[in-house]
């Protein structure tokens, strides 16, 4: 049913072409989306859909609501145009179903509608097309199998619809808009409704609102809006600055310390020595961030261009902020002293001469520790006792061993009788060393022999024995047998009395012996601690007893305790008394030396911590203001200890020399020190089995 374009009637309709239904899909319809959401479909210009069953294809084309409206109007027109009512009632079923029947459906009365007797074939069609001038407006109705010739009206309607116009010819879609409620004043009202009464009366609600506002303004609740100031206005804040106007709290103000200025190591191109080596870098990485000396790793970049951003920049600034407002501040006085100023100004040792400075002699001969040494009052002889159970007697000036006396046990203490008229050495036995003038030692022998036994035997704590002849040939004169081992012996300055200390826990720790009468007595009834050493006062009848922590001073005549000196140390080892008798020094095992001034206090006047290890022996010089201390660290320290006669002046103590010479054996160094009675010489005996003389 394709109509050739050359047909003159078609040409009348312009460029429209008619197509067979079913072919329309060949044409690509253009869909236009309209603004209200729907879309219109337009076929390319010049094509018209033309279908014998007009309703179907059109409804397919026009889907939107607007189209549906148009379709229904079209339908109405179409039905009206059918004059005779031969309507097929089969409904919308394919007509193929009736192919084999003589009828094609039923009319309204239920009668069969028969097919025309002879169907048109192709030839008829062709002829019809050629001859019938109305062929183009003839529509075949499949439902009724009739050809319908469309009227002019119908054709124009179809054309209008196809071109998307309204079905009604007279409908004007572009009527001018009538603006009912325009702003223009009109003479007549749009509506004639009479106006409300309330439009003439002022609004109550508004009045209420306004009055509320007025009231609020009156009451000052509503304030006129302040003109907004621009945020930042800078001016001369310190124009009227008063330097004295510092607030009270500024007195306590601690200004925050400034950030530390960067050093060379922070440079982007530091000198090579500031870069960390591999080990240092590893150590840095392993440290806690708080412990690190540098908060960053020094790095070197060859040029400024290659320096990256510092990743902890914001962190560090933030930490600074935290420090500023969270960190408690305290004003700390930093000591800014020259360390040289701290060193006390002491008189130069050179000005305090004489004192021993060099080691000049070594007395060798003992085979074990030399525990004790003592000098004869003349200063010519030296007696020493050792753990090898011998007492040796030396000549001081040559270092020659004059005599070796075998004693029964280790010699812990040896003292030369201070009386120059008597030549006696007290060990456990009283020994005549035969080293003196013949006159002197003969006199000594006579003195001992002149002893007359008293009539009545007194009970004695110790046994006095006269040695047998062999022993007396060796030099033994008297043997005092103690019940326990003796720690220390000491002579009274007159040389008649002798005190010994026993290592005992009972009250019999200290014994005083009188040689001329061969009598002994135990002066203390009670045990007041472990006695370390005892000493007689050089002038007065006082007796010093050093226990572990204190020194007790007894008056022997009044038989009472005079003073108790607190040594401030753990364990006193040795004690020496100044020849003047007013000063005492105590050495202790906790490496301190305390100097007591008996006139001042029971507390030490000075505590010297010169030695590194325990002190073993201390000694005062008889004439010179010197004292010495020997210690386990192998050194002897000689100090100048000047005691003035003026009571107001405190003693002057200046260390003058550190003498070293002894070698350490079994962790022991110097065991005893002794001064020469007349020369500024000091002797020291050590654990290395030597005695050394420093002059």
């Amino acid at each position: 049913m394709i109509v050739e374009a050359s047909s003159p009637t078609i040409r009348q309709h312009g460029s429209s072409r008619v197509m067979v239904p079913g072919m329309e899909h060949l044409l690509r319809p253009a869909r236009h989306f309209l603004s209200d959401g729907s879309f219109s479909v337009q076929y390319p210009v010049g094509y018209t859909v033309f279908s014998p069953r007009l309703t179907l294809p059109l409804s397919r084309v026009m889907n939107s609501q607007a189209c549906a409206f148009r379709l229904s109007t079209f339908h109405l027109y179409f039905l009206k145009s059918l004059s005779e009512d031969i309507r097929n009632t089969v409904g919308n079923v394919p007509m193929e179903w009736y192919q084999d029947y003589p009828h094609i459906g039923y009319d309204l009365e239920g009668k069969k509608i028969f097919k025309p007797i002879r169907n048109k074939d192709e030839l008829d069609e062709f002829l019809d097309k050629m001859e019938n001038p109305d062929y183009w407006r003839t529509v075949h109705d499949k439902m009724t199998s009739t050809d319908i010739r469309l009227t002019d009206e119908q054709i124009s309607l179809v054309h209008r619809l196809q071109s998307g116009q309204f079905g009604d010819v007279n409908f004007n879609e572009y009527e001018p808009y009538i603006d009912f409620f325009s702003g223009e004043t009109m003479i007549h009202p749009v509506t004639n409704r009479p106006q409300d009464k309330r439009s003439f009366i002022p609004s109550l609600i508004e009045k209420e609102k306004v009055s509320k506002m007025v009231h609020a303004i009156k009451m000052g609740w509503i304030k006129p809006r302040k003109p907004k100031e621009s945020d930042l206005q800078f001016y001369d804040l310190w124009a009227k600055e008063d330097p004295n106007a510092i607030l009270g709290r500024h007195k306590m103000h601690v200004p925050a310390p400034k950030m530390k200025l960067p050093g060379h190591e922070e440079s982007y191109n530091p000198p090579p020595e500031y870069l960390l080596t591999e080990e240092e870098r590893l150590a840095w990485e392993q440290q806690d961030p708080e412990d690190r000396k540098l908060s960053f790793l020094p790095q070197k970049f060859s040029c400024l261009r290659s320096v990256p951003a510092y990743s902890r920049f914001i962190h560090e600034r933030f930490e600074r902020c935290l420090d500023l407002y969270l960190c408690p501040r305290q004003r700390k006085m930093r000591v800014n002293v020259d360390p040289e100023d701290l060193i006390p100004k002491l008189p130069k040792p050179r000005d305090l001469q004489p004192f021993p400075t060099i080691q000049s002699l070594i007395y060798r001969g003992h085979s074990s520790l030399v525990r004790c040494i003592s000098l004869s009052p003349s200063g010519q002889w030296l007696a020493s006792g050792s753990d090898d159970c011998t007492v040796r007697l030396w000549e001081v000036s040559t270092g020659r061993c004059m005599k070796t006396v075998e004693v029964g046990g280790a010699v812990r203490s040896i003292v030369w009788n201070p009386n120059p008229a008597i030549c006696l050495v007290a060990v456990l036995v009283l020994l005549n060393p035969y080293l003196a003038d013949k006159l002197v030692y003969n006199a000594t022998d006579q003195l001992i022999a002149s002893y007359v036994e008293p009539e009545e035997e007194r009970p004695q704590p110790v046994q006095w024995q006269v040695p047998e002849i062999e022993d007396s040939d060796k030099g033994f004169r008297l043997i005092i047998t103690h019940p326990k081992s003796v720690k220390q012996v000491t002579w009274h300055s007159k040389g008649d009395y002798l005190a010994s200390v026993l290592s005992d826990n009972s009250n019999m720790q200290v014994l005083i012996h009188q040689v001329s009468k061969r009598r002994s007595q135990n002066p203390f009834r009670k045990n007041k601690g472990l006695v370390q050493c005892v000493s007689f006062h050089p002038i007065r009848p006082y007796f010093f007893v050093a226990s572990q922590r204190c020194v007790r001073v007894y008056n022997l005549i009044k038989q009472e305790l005079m003073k108790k000196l607190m040594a401030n140390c753990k364990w006193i080892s040795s004690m020496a008394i100044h020849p003047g008798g007013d000063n005492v020094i105590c050495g202790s095992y906790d490496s301190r030396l305390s100097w007591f001034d008996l006139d001042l206090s029971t507390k030490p006047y000075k505590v010297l911590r010169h030695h590194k290890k325990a002190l073993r022996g201390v000694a005062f010089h008889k004439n010179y203001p010197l004292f010495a201390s020997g210690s386990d660290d192998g050194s002897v320290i000689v100090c100048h200890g000047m005691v003035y006669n003026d009571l107001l002046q405190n003693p002057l103590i200046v260390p003058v020399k550190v003498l070293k010479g002894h070698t350490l054996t079994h962790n022991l160094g110097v065991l005893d020190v002794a001064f020469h009675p007349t020369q500024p010489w000091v002797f020291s005996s050590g654990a290395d089995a030597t005695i050394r003389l420093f002059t």
Partner: protein
Amino acid sequence: MGGQQQKKYERGSATNYITRNKARKKLSLSLADFRRLCILKGIYPHEPKHKKKVNKGSTAPRTFYLLKDIRFLLHEPIVGKFREYKIFVRKLRKAYGKGEWAGVQRLRENKPSYKLDHVVKERYPTFIDAIRDMDDALSMCFLFSTFARTGKCHVQTIQLCRRLCVEWMNYVIASRSLRKVFLSIKGIYYQADVLGQLVTWLVPYQFAHNHPTDVDYRVMATFTEFYTTLLGFINFRLYHSINLAYPPKCVVSPHFYSQKLSALSATLSRVISAPEDEDAELDHFPAEGEDAEALQVREKQQKGLDAQKRLFEGLKFFLSREVPREPLAFVIRCFGGQVSWDQSLCMGSTYNATDETITHQVVDRPNVDKKYINRYYVQPQWVFDCVNGKMLLPVEDYFPGVTLPPHLSPFMEEKDGDYVPPEKLKLMALQRGEKPGEIKFEEEEEGDEANADEDYDDDEEEMDNKEVRDEKSLKMIEKQRSQERAVSVMVTPGKVKAENKMRLEYEEKAEEKHLAIMMMKKKEKYLYDKIMFGKRRTVREANKLAAKRKAHDETLKANKKKKGKKD
């Protein structure tokens, strides 16, 4: 006698301090508000001298504020504003919830705000105080001015910071008060001398920040709030002190803030035209007790300072595109140099690379394509080293592609005993006016000589003695052999021991000192030991650095020799 028994902790230091929580309760503020108030008002905790007394016998770790400080906060108008703001937020939330948009609008218009002018005045009663405390403010503002709009803080704050920084830099340029610059790995340190106070600040390199998550930006923002106010007032006063209009016109338009650099190239308008003869000879009044020498030294220093201020005067710089423009332009302009850059890079360039009058071109790449004969090509470090050295250094070491000499920190002032890197010694010699070649030679010689002397002394003596001894012993042996055990006892003549008087004296002194140290009191001894320990440590560190340097130099020398041999 009677009388009530004194209760403990009701007098003395216990009553002077208050714990943080109590202070917060007293001010009835939330912790966040209290913190902000403390930051703004500059209140910080104090560490009491006797913590246990203040803590009423307890040893629990607590922070203490001075009670006076807290009382002082009670009357602070900002506290009221804080409360108002809290209410404002509540109202706003309510309005939002109800959807009352008009209400929201109204509330927003009446948002409570506060000013910090009085706080600044209170914290810094005098202008000098404010300048003394500027370091942190500047560093913070420079940091904030590099932030992008990332929502870490308000955009207005960033813009304000930029403005203030540009103003400050302009002031430093105008007053020529920059003294030292240091390129560190963290950023660039600048030090300026403002009214006799040294102000140091740190500027990060121009990179986008990697914002850390464990940093509380609110705290930083509060600090910045105060610092911007402070800086604004300081800038105002500083500008007026050198007769400049504030705010400077070049800085007013907002797009300038983003381009600090272009703002730097503009000159500032003066309120009063500057007098021509600025450097009139100042009269010198010798301070009391100052002798002529000190006066001379001072004059010399003053002269040096003046010379430093005019360091780059008459020089024309051109910055290549790869060098950081902002710091370089700032530094060059601070010392009177002219500076420009490629027009396509940034606003504010004043002349082109083709300008024949350019004296120095700052380049940071190994080679330059097109070179002009009449200008030096230097690496950026040259500019900074010149500033720190207070003189124009020889450019040879700083040519493009050359290994740069180390960049030293100008802030290090070495005391005697500290380690001084050899480059610093060289620089000091240069400053004294000696030629570098000579110095090197001398130094080496000196070092060698010193070493050699010692070695020589010791070795020679030992060697001599040994030789003599050896010879003698040999002779003896020979003699003995010839005599064939004729004599068994020999008396060898003793040698005279040469006494070194100096050494003896030194030893004596050392012993004296040692003995005196023994007599020190315990307390003083402790202190002395501590000081000496510190001293020894510094010496040890210095020695370590010196040894490292020596090793490094030796390896360098060896490498050079190897290369030479290969060639």
